[in-house]
């Protein structure tokens, strides 16, 4: 499967990290412009005492879409703010030796829309869906939703669906019903193509079916195809990924200079996230997940030897918030730590959709957004099922998880969405409000040493350390007891019941040692019942703005509750456990 990358391949950042300093210091100031339909951010790196460091960032609402529909407006504004902050001329010519490489990342044009249409069962379907989602594409799989109750492909449903989606690309797959359905499917596209839908048709079928299609649609159609029986599944997936990536990059390349006179190298957000996440995983020998929710959602996962990436441009808490209506209303409501009716939550979602640039400034809105982000993360994470593992040691999340009211809101959304179950029981959660991880990844394509320095020096400061207590029991049953000892000898003793959480204060840069004893039926990182476990800085226990969280809810977190009210009560209690005022 193509998105399941072999991470043994070097990221290019490692060797340079070892010799960081000289090389990166010579590079000059590097600028990354991170753009999408929600925000435009500029991140500036420069040499400080021989190492590349984060200098400044600025962000403004995006002007990619209407009413302005001109990205250069926001890009110029961001550069202007950065120039004001730093006193530098960031739009000087290519010959200015004070300036290093510039990169652009994110989604600078709208994502591709891809529809996958299998004629019957076809094992490639889920593989191609994952492949498509590893590119800047919205992927629609047209299976049951274009079939009659008898399971027969309906040309009218297919045509109606395709006209609604208006995909850039359709992937038509030969499945086990191709003999009876191929003519319907081809005929439907014959109806659609005079209207310019889709731009391109990719046919994955045997020669016989390809020939039928060519004869039916004629030479005018933009067709490409291959016979999947002649290739391994991963080769077919690779070909599709290359096709989609090339098409998107061609379209980005056709855009003007984005308001900057210097050359901007485009690095996709998924590639930037992949490079930086992989580098972090290899450097720390940990399993790392990075999550960014802005205009759409992007997730990268990497261990020492494997990784996966996913983009969901159609899912976020801004312009694409209505995708959350696809989640059953009871499930959606049960993650909100407030008493909201289905209609109230629907109103909230629609008001955000009408005014997608609005920020959650009120405490209540931040609580709601935190609950909704849980589902954004879990929906995207589920799309990577089979590729990723819940053994996550480090979570790095972008600005969308940085809540002004309490950073624990973002941490809660991430833990509930990803439900990490790390091997050693400890997860570090890092909040990255400036999007440094992705910017470092983007610049890493041009100047690996800069990226390595920045990730090591500026990104890897956790907001929270979460200790995951696994096991099951009855609600309220003691799960774990312990003692947190600070550097100055002060201690906090505590016990946490099953189904609960506890937040312990440990500030950024502070060190402490945690001693835990699990009750029978519970364990931290595979510990034995009654065994005393010690977790210190070397085991990943680090301070941060949120501190240390003992999560004794077991896994999965959202176990089936008898009633919606019971589920909501659990969620409210968890927020209160973390000291978040509701």
């Amino acid at each position, binding site marked *: 499967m193509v998105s399941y990358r072999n991470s043994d391949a070097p990221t290019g950042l490692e060797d340079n990290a070892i010799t960081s300093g000289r090389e990166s210091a010579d590079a000059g100031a590097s600028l990354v412009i991170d753009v999408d339909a929600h925000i435009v951010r500029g991140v500036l790196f420069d040499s400080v005492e021989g190492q590349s460091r984060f200098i400044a960032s600025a962000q403004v609402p995006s002007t990619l879409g209407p009413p302005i529909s001109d990205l250069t407006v926001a890009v110029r504004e961001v550069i202007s703010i950065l120039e004001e902050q730093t006193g530098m001329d960031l739009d000087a010519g290519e010959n200015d030796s004070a300036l290093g490489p510039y990169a652009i990342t994110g989604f600078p044009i709208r994502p591709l829309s891809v529809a996958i249409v299998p004629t019957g069962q076809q094992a490639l379907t889920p593989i191609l869906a994952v492949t498509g989602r590893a590119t800047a594409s919205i992927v629609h799989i047209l299976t049951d939703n274009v079939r009659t109750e008898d399971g027969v492909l*309906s040309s009218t449903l297919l045509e109606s669906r395709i006209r609604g989606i208006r995909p850039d690309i359709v992937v038509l797959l030969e499945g086990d019903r191709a003999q009876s359905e191929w003519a319907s499917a081809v005929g439907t596209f014959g109806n659609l193509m005079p209207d310019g839908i889709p731009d391109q048709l990719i046919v994955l079928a045997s020669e016989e079916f390809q020939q039928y299609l060519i004869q039916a649609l004629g030479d005018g159609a933009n067709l490409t195809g291959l016979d999947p029986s002649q290739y391994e599944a991963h080769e077919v997936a690779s070909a599709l990924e290359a096709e989609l990536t090339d098409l998107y990059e061609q379209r980005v390349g056709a855009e003007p200079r984005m308001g900057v006179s210097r050359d901007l190298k485009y690095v996709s957000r998924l590639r930037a996230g992949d490079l930086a996440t992989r580098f972090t995983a290899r450097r720390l020998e940990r399993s790392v997940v990075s999550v960014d929710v802005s205009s759409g959602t992007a997730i990268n996962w990497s261990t020492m030897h494997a990784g996966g990436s996913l983009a969901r441009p159609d899912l976020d808490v801004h312009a694409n918030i209505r*995708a959350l209506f696809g989640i059953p209303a009871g499930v959606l409501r049960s993650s909100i730590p407030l008493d909201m009716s289905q209609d109230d939550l629907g109103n909230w979602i629609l*008001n955000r959709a009408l005014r997608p640039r609005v920020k959650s400034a009120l405490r209540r*809105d931040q609580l709601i957004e935190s609950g909704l982000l849980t589902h954004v993360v879990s929906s995207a994470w589920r799309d990577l099922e089979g590729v990723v593992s819940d053994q996550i040691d480090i979570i790095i999340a972008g600005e969308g998880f940085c809540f002004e009211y309490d950073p624990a809101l973002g941490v809660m959304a991430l833990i509930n969405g990803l439900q990490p179950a790390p091997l050693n029981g400890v997860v570090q959660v890092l909040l990255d409000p400036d999007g440094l991880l992705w910017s470092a990844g983007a610049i890493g394509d041009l100047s690996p040493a800069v990226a390595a320095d920045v990730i090591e020096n500026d990104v890897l400061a956790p907001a929270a350390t979460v200790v995951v207590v696994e096991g099951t029991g009855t609600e309220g049953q003691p799960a774990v007891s312990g003692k947190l000892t600070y550097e100055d000898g002060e201690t906090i003793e505590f016990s946490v019941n099953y189904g609960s959480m506890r937040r312990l204060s440990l500030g950024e840069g502070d060190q402490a040692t945690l001693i835990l004893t699990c009750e029978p039926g519970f364990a931290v990182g595979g510990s034995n019942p009654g065994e005393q476990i010690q977790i210190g800085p070397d085991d990943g226990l680090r301070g941060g703005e949120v501190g240390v969280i003992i999560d004794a809810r077991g896994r999965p977190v959202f176990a089936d509750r008898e009633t919606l009210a019971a589920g909501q009560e659990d969620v409210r209690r968890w927020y209160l456990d973390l000291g978040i005022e509701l």
Partner: protein
Amino acid sequence: MWSFPTLEPVVLTQGSFAIERVLSQAGEVVVSVGASVDPDEVIARSEDVEQTMTLYVASELGVESEELSKYVAKSIGSSIRKGEVIARVRRGLRTATVKSPVDGTLVSVDDSSGTVVVSSSLGKRDLLSLVSGEVERVIPNMGAIIRTSGTRLYGIAGFGTEAIGSLVVGTDRPDRELTADNVPNDWKGKIVLAGMTAGVPALTRLVEVGAAGVILASIPEGDLRRFLSGGQMDQDGFWNPVTAAHGDLSHPSVDSPLVIIVTEGFGRRPMNDRMFEILRGRSDQIISVSARTSLGNSLARPEIYLDDDEGTDRGIDDRIVDRRPLRIVDSGAFSVPATAAGEPYVRPSRFGVREVVVNVFLESGQTRTVPTTNVEVIE
């Protein structure tokens, strides 16, 4: 820095502005540059366009192509409604059917290919000017840009199409709800100012008496969904159609029996005082409303046009300056009246991210600092 999605204030009084009026499909433009037009004057019309659609009925029914004729339920040349059965086959205790996706006519049945062809008409459409003014530019085959003098109010969400009618005031305050009991029989063709909101019974009553449109501050999404879909569609189906990516706010198949203009948002919030005051002052005057709403890349918001004899050609901007009236539009507490206390400035957030904010005076006399993304300039 802008606030309202359209980059302009919500209210423009006695101004001069241009509106673009275009057909949804190519047709004939019947006005020329410089012509004076009235709101109810046709400026363009699209002809009846026939469209054919080939349906692969045999494969859908699971029958041999050459046997298709046996299963077709309508005769060639007969008219057929959207959703009506074209062909059916009995399979044991069950019947498999193929339904027409459109209103149209059954044109042919082809036993060699197993297909049925249905033709449908896109219908004639007359495009009205909606405003009094002068044609500034003709858009060939599509419509025109009309310059007008008057008052324009933006809504935030609309349902239905367009309407021209006499304005009646249904509630005496912007925080009152229009009830069914308040709707008299003689509101046929009227556009009703409904204040804060109107429930399903009141909306149903408005349809019964033949009202052309209703302007309200807010409406709970559940009420609106139940009114427009008869309770048949859930939130996902209604608000998140596959066409959402192309800007549709609700499912494109949902027709509203009257034009509904929502000025503030979803839920229950009073109408902005200034907007209510302007509208109430136009009671019994003819006004025009366009409900067209599109999110994302094809941005459009509903508009209300009130004719004025004179308008000044002053620039329109939504800059936030000291003392300018605003509304705060937090997602959970939208449409809170406020006044700018100075100009926007940049400050670092708790996380050090620099964001543009503005201090505002609330009606309670308190002050609040708000991201500029969360305020809209009223006038």
